[in-house]
C-alpha cells in the first residue's frame, strides 16, 4: 500500500551537477505531477503527465526534464543544477480523467534538494 514513493529524501548537489529525482506509484494512476515547494510560495507545477509517453510543461519547467516510459514511473531530471533549484520537490498522482478524480490526488513525501 505504498502509494507514491519518492527517492531520495534528501540530496546536496554542487552547482553544475545533474541528478534524477525518482517517483514511482503503484496505484495505476494515469495522471502524475511534479511540484516544487519554496518557503512562503506554496507549490508550483513543474511538469505533468497524462499517461505513459505523454508529458507537458507546467508553470516553472526551466532547468528540468521529465520522461514517462511507464505508468508507474515519472522521474524528474535536473541538468546543470543551480542554487535557484534548492527546494522541496513533490511528486503526485491522480486517478481518472474526470474532475472527480480529484478525490485521488496522492502526494509523495518529498525530496529536499540543496544546491551549493
Amino acid at each position, binding site marked *: 500500500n505504498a502509494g*507514491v514513493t519518492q527517492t531520495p529524501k534528501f540530496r546536496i548537489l554542487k552547482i553544475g551537477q545533474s541528478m534524477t529525482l525518482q517517483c514511482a506509484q503503484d496505484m495505476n494512476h494515469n495522471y502524475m505531477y511534479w511540484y516544487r515547494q519554496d518557503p512562503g*510560495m506554496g507549490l508550483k507545477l513543474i511538469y505533468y503527465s*497524462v499517461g505513459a509517453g505523454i508529458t507537458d510543461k507546467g508553470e516553472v519547467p526551466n532547468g528540468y526534464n521529465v520522461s514517462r516510459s511507464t505508468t508507474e514511473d515519472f522521474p524528474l531530471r535536473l541538468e546543470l543544477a543551480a542554487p535557484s533549484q534548492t527546494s522541496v520537490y*513533490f511528486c503526485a498522482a491522480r486517478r481518472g480523467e474526470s*474532475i*472527480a478524480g480529484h478525490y485521488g*490526488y496522492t502526494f509523495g513525501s*518529498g525530496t529536499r534538494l540543496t544546491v551549493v
Partner: protein
Amino acid sequence: AQSVTQPDIHITVSEGASLELRCNYSYGATPYLFWYVQSPGQGLQLLLKYFSGDTLVQGIKGFEAEFKRSQSSFNLRKPSVHWSDAAEYFCAVGDRGSTLGRLYFGRGTQLTVWP
C-alpha cells in the same frame, strides 16, 4: 488566471481554542476548492474539498470549511484545536474546466499550537 491568497503566514493558538484559517481565491467561475495539510517531513494530505452543493463541507480530523461565493472565500475552521494539528495548511483551487486536474496552491499558513 487562477490564484489563491492565504493572508496569514503564521498563526499561533492555544490548545483547545478555536481556529480559522483564511483563504481567498480568484477564478472566473465556481472553482473546485481544497484544503491540504502538511506535517513536518511529510507530503500533503487532503483535509476536505468543495465541488458543489452544500457550502459547508466537513473534512477529516474535525475540520470544516465554508464556501462563500460573494466573498470568494473558503475559510477552514476547527472548534477546538489539538496539539497534533500543528502543521502547515494549504488552500488550493482546482481548474473546473479541465480534466488535467491541476491545482493552484496558496503559499500556506503555518499553525503553531501552544499547550
